[in-house]
């Protein structure tokens, strides 16, 4: 058995897996992190793996060991992520009838593992340097903040990277009343037929067709919720209310408007069709029918179905828990006023509002000064969050310690710096399944970073597979110019007048100017090198706060099916990136 783990290795639980009544020996090997390598002081190692292939190759090696040596069982577990000095990085156990085979197999496994299994380690040195081990002579990464060495990538690659590397959270059972907006993780099916009885659809009389054009004696009255067991016979009728069960033998309901009642009898209209105004048992939904499937969004209509079918709880993908960590010594204490060279925190409250708007209820807040120690404490405090949003400290200044702090925490930085404006120094990393976003300290950069990258990650975590809403088109009211080497995301005001959107670009004086754009409700994307757009031209735009995916809407019918044979070519639109 070969396993990879992100948590500490507990030898006793693994050695239990080697147990065999035929084994007289158990040889184990533990690889630990030592505090020096090649004469340099090492503080920690960071391991990463090509997980699927690593497990396959690891299993292959264990199989080979069991073939070559007369051993009973072989187990190997390798840890990933950041591992401090003294901790166990790899544990191997082999049980065999005799010690020689156990020792030999153990040695074979560690030797082969080191040369074949796609696992890599980076040494973090006490002096702040870091280097990949075994990557070849002369390969060296400057500074512990290894994210600094990452290449700048374009906004589309960055977004697909966020989407492609984010997996839905594990489903949980939630009360139906808390399930709105979540993604279903089980099929919703009818526990019984609907309607569960022959239901009257009008106020009137339950009648036999034989009585059409004649009279029937009124034997009683059935209200909704009531019941009559007696079978209806010719010449007899019951007054019945909408929603009430029809007595057995009812062939139609004659509406009260057309059935004349006189002296305890009813004149049944002569034109009455079989089954008229009766919803037959099971005619709307047979027992066992699946009405919504895993992956569908839980909308109010799905809630109505869940309630109808007796669900009190339902399995659904939860929404992620998010932590916001503001950084920077320039931020004033919330309770005291700002000092002359301090500012009040805008990003923290803005991110909380953005998370509220995205329906994220479970939020944590933290603050860290611009030093590794303070950030380490804040990251530790946020250890239960699925998503950690840091603002500030992510650029290249002397006090921009977020990349280094994340690397030291064991976060695998996937990109740092995106060719966009605002928000170039955006950082994205992962640790296991947890996501980390380093958002630039300028509020507009944080704002864009959230809308464009954090939101899609939140949806992906919440299991939304549907594509985001396509951009709308609007008429520019003024000129819009891009920037030379970066993609511009320009905040705008969008107004609906006379059947069209009108888009007013709101120029701002830099990424901290939240004042000129305070009423923005949309943004327009301008790619680098694009020609200036003028007033009167139509441009695609994205409405802020409405970028969310549509509800799944069930399985779509392909256009040729509903358009007949005529070939249908959908209007060209900007490419939509679909998660997964």
């Amino acid at each position, binding site marked *: 058995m070969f396993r990879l783990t992100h948590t500490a290795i507990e030898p006793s639980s693994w050695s239990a897996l080697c147990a065999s009544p035929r084994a007289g020996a158990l040889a184990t090997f533990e690889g630990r992190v030592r505090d020096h390598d090649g004469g340099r002081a090492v503080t920690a190692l960071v391991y990463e793996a090509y997980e699927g292939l690593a497990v396959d190759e690891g299993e292959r090696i264990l199989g080979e060991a069991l073939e070559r040596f007369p051993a009973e069982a072989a187990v190997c577990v390798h840890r990933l992520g950041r591992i401090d000095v003294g901790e166990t990085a790899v544990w191997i156990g082999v049980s065999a009838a005799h010690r020689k085979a156990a020792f030999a197999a153990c040695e074979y496994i560690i030797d082969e593992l*080191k040369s074949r*299994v*796609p696992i890599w380690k980076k040494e973090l040195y006490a002096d702040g340097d870091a280097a*990949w081990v*075994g*990557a070849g002579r002369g390969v060296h990464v400057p500074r512990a903040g290894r994210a600094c060495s*990452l290449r*700048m990538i374009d906004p589309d690659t960055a977004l697909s990277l966020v989407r492609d590397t984010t997996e839905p959270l594990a489903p949980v059972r939630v009360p139906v009343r808390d399930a709105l907006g979540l993604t279903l993780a089980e099929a919703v099916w009818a526990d019984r037929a609907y309607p569960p009885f022959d239901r009257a659809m009008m106020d009137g009389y339950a009648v036999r067709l034989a009585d059409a054009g004649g009279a029937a004696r009124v034997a009683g009255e059935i209200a909704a919720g009531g019941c009559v067991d007696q079978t209806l016979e010719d010449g007899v009728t019951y007054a019945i209310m909408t929603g009430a069960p029809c007595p057995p033998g009812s062939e139609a309901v004659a509406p009260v408007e057309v059935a004349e009642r006189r002296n305890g009898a009813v004149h049944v209209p002569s034109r009455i069709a079989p089954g008229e105004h009766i919803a037959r048992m099971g005619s709307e939904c047979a027992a066992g029918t699946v009405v919504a499937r895993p992956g569908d969004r839980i909308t109010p209509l799905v809630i109505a179905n869940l309630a109808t079918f007796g669900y009190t709880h339902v399995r659904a993908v939860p929404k992620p828990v998010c932590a916001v960590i503001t950084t920077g010594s320039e931020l004033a204490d919330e309770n005291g006023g700002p000092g002359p060279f301090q500012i009040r925190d805008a990003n923290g409250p803005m991110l909380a509002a953005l998370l509220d708007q995205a329906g994220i209820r479970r939020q944590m807040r933290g603050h860290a000064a611009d030093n590794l120690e303070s950030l380490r404490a804040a990251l530790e405090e946020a250890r239960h969050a699925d998503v950690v949003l840091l603002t500030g400290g992510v650029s290249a200044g002397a006090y921009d310690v977020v990349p280094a702090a994340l690397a030291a925490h064991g976060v695998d930085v996937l990109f740092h710096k995106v060719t966009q404006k605002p928000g170039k120094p955006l950082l994205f990393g992962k640790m296991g399944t947890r996501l980390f976003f380093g958002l630039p300290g300028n509020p507009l950069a944080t704002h864009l970073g959230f809308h464009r990258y954090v939101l899609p990650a939140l949806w992906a975590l919440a299991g939304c597979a549907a594509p985001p809403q396509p951009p709308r088109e609007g008429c520019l009211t003024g000129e819009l110019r891009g920037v030379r080497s970066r993609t511009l995301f320009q905040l705008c005001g969008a107004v609906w007048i006379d059947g069209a959107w009108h888009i007013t670009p709101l120029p701002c004086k830099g990424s901290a100017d939240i004042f000129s754009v305070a009423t923005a409700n949309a943004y327009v994307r301008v790619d680098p090198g694009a020609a200036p757009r003028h007033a009167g031209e139509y441009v695609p735009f994205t409405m802020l706060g409405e970028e969310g995916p549509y509800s799944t809407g069930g399985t779509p019918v392909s256009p040729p099916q509903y358009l007949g044979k005529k070939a249908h070519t959908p209007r060209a639109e900007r490419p939509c990136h679909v998660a997964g």
Partner: protein
Amino acid sequence: MSKTVTIEYFALLREARGCAREKRETDAATPRVLYGDLRARFRLPISAEAMRVAVNGAFASWDVPLHDNDTVAFIPPVAGG
């Protein structure tokens, strides 16, 4: 013939490329040609000779033909344990 492949980078190579995974259109017939193109374009620091390659989750030869929608992972020298 042009095809779309998903490329996965690890460790040093991931840092040099700036991302862990990307989709690219390519005319390259084999992983060797594909890596040659990428190496020249992004100045990647490791030569193909020093690495192994995996196609669709399994180790493969550098000269295996590439198909549309293949996933290619370049495996820098490993250092587990």
